[in-house]
């Protein structure tokens, strides 16, 4: 099984992107995941936790089809995303280190490494951009190995041991290298996972990759203060320091690699040197940055590592590029996705298919099914008449309506809004053409059925008119191959997926790579 450990707010947002790609069908069969974050209230984490719930709901219903295939293991049979923190409650940093319980000599060492302010710093909203604090706290990880109060690490160790006994186990650690929790978590985690007492045997089968996010957003505490926002100038992270922190991290990991103390099988550096402005926050629920394409790149890198763990001991770099079409700005195209194990065309087509299926569902079928005229004359939609109408548990039954609800919610409240954030307004992300959406949004009610096929073309181009008609035609043609023994809702999604695949294949999928 593959394991993804996400650290901090950026890590949580990478998990968000990974989950969406799993929904697309690009994920591994099973994925064990949890988050390390000492700021359990941060908005990004909250968003990802909700997304996990929505994903699990869809996976249970549609997981046997082409979408939502990845089964999540949230540890200990949990249905909710587990968030682990080395900090308990509202501890101060000195409490985390058990400063009062240390010997005088140990205290002197602690005082040598940390200032008095840092020791007194409350940890309720994370490490506030102080990776030194986080690294110290997370270096205590082995102490949590057999924590009776929280058996998470014990279970991780047991599961990983089982994984390496059955074959290769792949672990990816994702986090930023410029903030607090993420920056401090990667190396202590690698060291912990490589420690001899974690895996009793077959430890060489454990492949570890890291996704290191370099700065891709910035904020200004001064501007926020000028607007009257509450600012914590003393202790909170400052985006001016992000480049320096990233450079230090890069030098650190380079040093480790050169001195054979790296412990990783691959490390992906992902970032954007044209960072976006985000609202200032020093943590808590206000820390809820919109999704960014760097997180998408990170998610792709993560899935690529799962698919191609043969990558050995190397740094990989990924980010957008400059194009003549947009001087001074970075642009992201399909060619910029960090892929080696996954096929670029496969990734692109899978995203196209999911997008098309979602748009057809939201814009067309979810509006069609409740229409009583279809109940009276089901033959108007041949596959609806053949497989769903007048049957117990058909698509017009209450059970099917309930089953389809999570899908509608996923598309309209999770997936498309996330893409809307990824495809920021300045046109730098050229992956999917925006003319498929009406002005003002990417959710339910904004689907341009007359331009649904535009999504197959890169943004910034003038796509040929490709309307709903041919997609509907494909649903009719492929329906006979849909799984007869599947639940109605699942069969419906299977029809959507097959039609989308044929639509993509016929219109665009077989076109030569740009």
């Amino acid at each position, binding site marked *: 099984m593959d394991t993804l450990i996400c650290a901090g707010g950026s890590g949580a947002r990478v998990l968000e992107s990974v989950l969406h790609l799993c929904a697309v069908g690009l994920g591994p069969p099973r994925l064990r995941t949890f988050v390390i974050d000492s700021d359990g209230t941060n908005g990004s984490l909250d968003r990802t936790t909700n997304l996990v719930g929505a994903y699990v709901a869809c996976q249970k219903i549609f997981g046997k089809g082409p979408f939502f295939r990845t089964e999540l293991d949230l540890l200990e049979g949990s249905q909710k995303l587990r968030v682990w923190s080395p900090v308990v409650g509202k501890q101060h940093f000195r409490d985390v280190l058990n400063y009062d319980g240390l010997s005088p000599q140990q205290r002197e060492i602690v005082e040598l490494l940390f200032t008095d302010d840092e020791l007194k710093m409350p940890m309720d909203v994370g490490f506030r951009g102080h990776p030194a604090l986080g690294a110290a706290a997370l270096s205590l990880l082995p102490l949590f190995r057999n924590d009776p109060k929280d058996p998470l690490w014990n279970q991780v160790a047991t599961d990983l041991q089982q994984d390496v006994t059955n074959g290769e186990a792949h672990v990816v650690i994702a986090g930023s290298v410029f903030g607090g929790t993420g920056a401090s978590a990667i190396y202590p985690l690698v060291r912990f996972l490589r420690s001899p007492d974690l895996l009793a045997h077959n430890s060489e089968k454990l492949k570890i990759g890291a996704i290191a996010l370099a700065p891709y957003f910035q904020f200004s505490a001064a501007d926020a203060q000028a607007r009257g926002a509450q600012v914590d100038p003393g202790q909170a992270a400052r985006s001016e320091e992000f480049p320096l922190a990233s450079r230090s991290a890069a030098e650190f990991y380079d040093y480790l690699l050169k001195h054979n103390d790296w412990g990783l099988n691959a490390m992906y550096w992902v970032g954007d040197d044209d960072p976006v402005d985000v609202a200032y926050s020093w943590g808590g629920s206000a820390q809820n940055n919109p999704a960014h394409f760097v997180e998408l790149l990170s998610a792709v890198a993560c899935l690529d590592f799962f698919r191609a763990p043969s990558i050995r001991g190397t740094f990989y770099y990924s980010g957008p590029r400059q194009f003549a079409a947009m001087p001074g700005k970075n642009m992201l195209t399909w060619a910029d996705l960090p892929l080696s194990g996954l096929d670029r065309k496969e990734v692109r087509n899978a995203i196209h298919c999911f997008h098309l299926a979602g748009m057809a569902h939201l814009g067309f079928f979810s509006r069609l099914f409740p229409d009583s005229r279809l109940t009276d004359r089901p033959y108007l939609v041949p596959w609806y008449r*053949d497989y769903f109408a007048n049957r117990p548990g058909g698509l017009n039954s209450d059970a099917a309506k309930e089953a389809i609800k999570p899908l509608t919610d996923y598309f309209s409240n999770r997936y498309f809004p996330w893409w809307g954030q990824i495809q920021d307004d300045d046109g730098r992300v050229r992956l999917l053409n925006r003319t498929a959406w009406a002005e003002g949004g990417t959710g339910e009610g904004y689907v341009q*059925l007359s331009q649904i096929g535009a999504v197959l073309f890169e943004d910034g181009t003038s796509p040929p008119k490709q309307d709903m008609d041919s997609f509907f035609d494909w649903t009719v043609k492929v329906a006979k*191959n849909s799984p007869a023994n599947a639940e109605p809702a699942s069969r419906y999604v299977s029809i959507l997926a097959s039609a989308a695949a044929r639509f993509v294949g016929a219109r665009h999928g077989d076109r030569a790579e740009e």
Partner: protein
Amino acid sequence: MGNFFEWLNNPDTVTIDYRTWERFQINLSLIVVGAVAATVMAILVCYAIHARRLKILAPGDIFRRYTPLRWLFLAIAGGIMAAILCAVQLSAIVSGLSTLAAISIEAFFLTSMVAALAAYALLVIVGPLTPARFRYRPAWYLHSGRPETRQS
């Protein structure tokens, strides 16, 4: 080509001899068969083009009236054509207007009915004439009940 109008009685055995009437019957057969064939072909072509041009762009379009079937009314034009040709043929051998009209009307109905029925039967039987998305529209009455259990 056989004589399909042997049943059509000679209206005036005194002035129209047997051979003239038989020739007329054979000509009428040719006219009707030709008109039916041409009409059926025209109906099917027009139907297929129209059905393919009918787009489903929004959920409401599903419930739109299936207008391509209206091309079956083209059979009336076929019937009129046959009736006119029949009248032209008949005017040379029959003097009475009522006889001419009666036989032409018979040709009209025969051509129209046969063309319409043949065209309808073909567009129901020959699947590719109807786009897949409208598969059940031409013979909706066969598909409006509970579908049979199908296994794919």
